[in-house]
C-alpha cells in the first residue's frame, strides 16, 4: 500500500490478492453479479479518531454471449471487459484510488482499508444460505498504513 497526498486529495495504491470461492465463481457464471465493497477510513494517528471515510463498489459480471467478463468500477463510466476472470481479479488486485476533498492538517494519520463481498447485494434467495455458509465469506481484515502530511 502506498499513500501520497496531493493537495486535498490522497493518491492510494493498493496491491492485494483476491480470490473468489467456487460457489461465488459458479454464481457469477450463472448470472449473479458480484459486488465487492472497498471500505477506506482515514484516522488520526494519535487517537485513531475517524477523519474521513470512503466506500467504493466494484461489480463483476459474466457475459455468456461473448464469454467475456465485465468489471464496473466507480472511476469509469463504461465497464471494462476481460476475456478471463483472472484478468478481472488481477485488475482489482492493483487498485489506484484517488480520495478527493479530504482536508487534512499536517500530522500523522492512518489509512485503513478492507474489501469484502457484499452479501446484501445478492439475490434474496441467496442471502439466507450465504449467511450460514462460510464459503460465501469474502471479507478481508482491516489493513492499516500510516502516513504523514507535512506542513
Amino acid at each position: 500500500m502506498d499513500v501520497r497526498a496531493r493537495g486535498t486529495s490522497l493518491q492510494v495504491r493498493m496491491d492485494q490478492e483476491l480470490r473468489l470461492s467456487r460457489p461465488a465463481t459458479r454464481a457469477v457464471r450463472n448470472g449473479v453479479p458480484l459486488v465487492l465493497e472497498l471500505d477506506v477510513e482515514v484516522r488520526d494517528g494519535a487517537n485513531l479518531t475517524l477523519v474521513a471515510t470512503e466506500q467504493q463498489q466494484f461489480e463483476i459480471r459474466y457475459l455468456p454471449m461473448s464469454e467475456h467478463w465485465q468489471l464496473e468500477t466507480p472511476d469509469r463510466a463504461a465497464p471494462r471487459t476481460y476475456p478471463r476472470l483472472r484478468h478481472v481479479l488481477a485488475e482489482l488486485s492493483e487498485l489506484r484510488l484517488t480520495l478527493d476533498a479530504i482536508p487534512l492538517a499536517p500530522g500523522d494519520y492512518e489509512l485503513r482499508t478492507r474489501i469484502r463481498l457484499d452479501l446484501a447485494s445478492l439475490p434474496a434467495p441467496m442471502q439466507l444460505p450465504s449467511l450460514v455458509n462460510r464459503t460465501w465469506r469474502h471479507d478481508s481484515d482491516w489493513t492499516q498504513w500510516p502516513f504523514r502530511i507535512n506542513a
Partner: protein
Amino acid sequence: MALQDQRLKRALFRVFPILAALVVLLVSLVLVSDVQGEGTNRTYLWVLVLTLLALAILGLSIVSRVASLLRKVRRKEPGARLAARWVRNFLVFSLPPALIVYFFSAYFLTRTIDNWFDVQVEEALQDSLELGQAFLDQRTLDARNQSRALADELPLEDGRDAVRDTLLNNVSATGPVELALLNPSGSVVATASYDPLADLPELPGDYALLQGLERGEYAAAEPTGHGGLRVRVLQRLPAPRLGEVYLLQSIYPLPESITALTGSIEAEYFRYRNVAFLRGSLKQSFILILTLVLLLTVLLAILAALSAARRMVTPLSDLARATQRVAAGDLDQAVEFRTEDEVGFLATSFNDMSRALVSASEAAEEGRARLQAQGEYLETVLGSLSAGVMTLDPGGTLVRLNTAAESILDLPAGLAHGQSLDELAGSFGHVQPLAETIGRQVRRGRRDWQEEVRLEPGGRTRVLLARGSELPGSDYLDGGNVVVFDDVTILNQAQRDAAWAEVARRLAHEVKNPLTPIRLAAERLRMKLMDKLGARDADMLDRSANTIVAQVEALRKLVDAFGDYARDTELERAPVALDELIREVVHLYRQGDPTLQIELDLCEGPVGLQADAVQLRQLLHNLIRNAREAAGEGEVARLHIATRRETGAETDWLVLDVRDQGPGFPEAVLAKPFEPYVTFKPSGSGLGLAICRKIVADHDGQIEISNPDDGGALARVRLPLPEAGQRGSAVPRSRKA
C-alpha cells in the same frame, strides 16, 4: 415490595418465552414474504441472529421447566407425575402431525420449485445462445480472413504514409470501420477510421495484445462499453526488417439488429440461468424457514403443554399437599382457587371439609380435655381413698386398681392392670382368696354383695371387708363389676384386744381374789396337820401343800400378767437414751445367766426419743426373755441387739432389732403374732408379744416379727423420733426401773 418483584419476575418468566416465540413467528413471516424479492436487506443477519436467540430462549425455558418437572417427579411431589404424563401425551399427539406437515410441505415446495423450470425452454434458450455465438464466430472468422488478406497487402517497406493510405482505402461502413497499425507495446503507429470524427482507436487489452504477438493473430467478439458487440482482430504482420514487429488491429461492427437480438438472447438466457441457479438457494431458504416454523411449532407445543400441565396440576397439587397435611394431623388447611370449574368446586369442598374437620377436632379436643379432667379427678379421688377399689370388665379382667388397692394387696404399682383375676392370683398367690371370693360372688349374679376376706401376705394375716357391685353396661361401656375393700385387720385386732383386755380384767378380778385364801388355807392345813400325821402322810401333805402353793403362785403370776395386759397405762414420756437403757438391761441378764451371749450394735442415743422408760424396759425384758427361751433350757443362747436411725419420708424412726439364733417363730405365731395366748412355749402365758405390741402401740410405733432367711428369729421395733425442733438438747439419762 419483594413479593411484587417476585410476582413480576414470575410473570416475565412466563411471558418472555411467548414473546420470543412471537418474535420468531414474525421473523419467519418476514422471511417468507421477502424470500423471492429482489431486495438487499442487510438486516437479514440480525434477523437470523434474533431468531436463533429467540429459539434458544424458548429452548432454555423448556429445558428449565422440564428439568424442574423431572426433579419433582423424582421427589414424588404431588401432581408431578400427572403433569409429566400430560406433557408426554400432549407431545405424542401434537408432534407427529407437525412433522408430517413439515415433511410434506418441504416435499411440496421442492417439487413446485422444480416444476417452475421447463427443460424445453432452457434448451431453446441454450440453442439461441449457441446460435448467436455461432453467428459471432462466423462473423469473427470472416473478419479474421479479411484481416489476413489486408495484412498481406500492407506496404510496410514503403513507409507510414503508404500504410496509412492503404488503411484508409480499406475501411468501410460494413467493416472494418477502424484499422490501426500497432507496435508490440500496443502504441498506435498508423490508424484509419471510417468515421472521420472518431477518436483514437480503442487499444486492445493485454490479453489480446499478448495473443496477437505470441500466436500471430487474435480474433474475438468483444462487448462494447455500451452493451453492444464488435469483432476485434489482431494480425501480426511479417517483419520488413529484422527486429520490427507490428500488429494490425481491425474493428468490425455488428449490425444493430443483430446486436439487439444477441443482447436480448443473452439477457433472457442469463435471467433464466440466474433463476435456475437460484433454485437451490430458494429451496434451501424455504427449508430453512420451514424448519424455523417447525421448531417454533414444536417448542411452542412443548411450552404450551408444560404451561397447561402446570395450570391444570397446580391446584390438584395444592389439594394433594393439603390432603397430606390433613392426614398428618394438621387440619387447618385451605386451598386457594381462582376458577369456577370442577377444580374450583373441589377446592371449595375441600376447604369446607377442612373447616368442618377443624370444628369437629376442636369439639373432640374439648371433649377429650373434659374427659381427661374428669378422669384425672376420678383418679385423684380414687387415689385419695383409703379403701381399695378395683374394676373388672365382664370378662373378669382388671381395668383399674387404685393405689390403696395395690398397697392393701401388696401388689407392685401398675402390674395388675390388664390381668384377669386368675392371672393375678397365679402371679401373686396371697391374692387368691380375694380372687376366689370375687369370682364366686360374680358368678352368683348378685348385684351387690359384701364379704370378709382373709389374706396372708408375707405370713401375716390381713382381713379385708370386700363389697362388690355390678356396673351397668351402656353403648360406650361394657359394664363389669366394681369391688371396694377395706383393710379391717386393725379394726379386728382392736376388737380382739378389747375383748382380751376385758377377759384379762375379769380374770384378774375374779381369779386373783381367791388365790390368797387358797394359799393361806393350804399353808394352814400343812401347819395344823403336819404334826398329827404319820411320817408318810405328813410327807404327802407337805408335797400337796407345796404343790398348791406353787400352783397358786403360778396362777397369781398369770393373773398379774393378765392384769398388766389389761391395764390402761398412763405413759410418762421423757427423753430416753435407748442405748444406755439397753446396756443396763443387758448387764442384768449377763450377770444372771452365763449361758446368754448378747452382742450389741447400738447407735448413739438417739437424741430426741420421748418414751416411757419403764415401758421400754418391760419391752426389752420381754423381747430378751423370748429370745433366751427360744434357745432351750441350759443351752447357750446368742442374741444380737442393734439400734439404728432410719430416715423416712415423713418422719425418722428408731429401729430396734432383737435377733436370736434359735429355731425361729412357729407358723402359728407368725400367723397371729401378737394374739394373746398364742405361744410356742409350754410354760408361756402367750402374753409376752401381745404386751410388747401394746407398749409399742402406746408409743405410736410398729412391731413386727419374722424369721430371717439365714435362720433365727427377729423382732423389729420402730419408734418414731420427733422432728429436730421438738428434740431435747442433751441425751437424758433413762429412768431406773
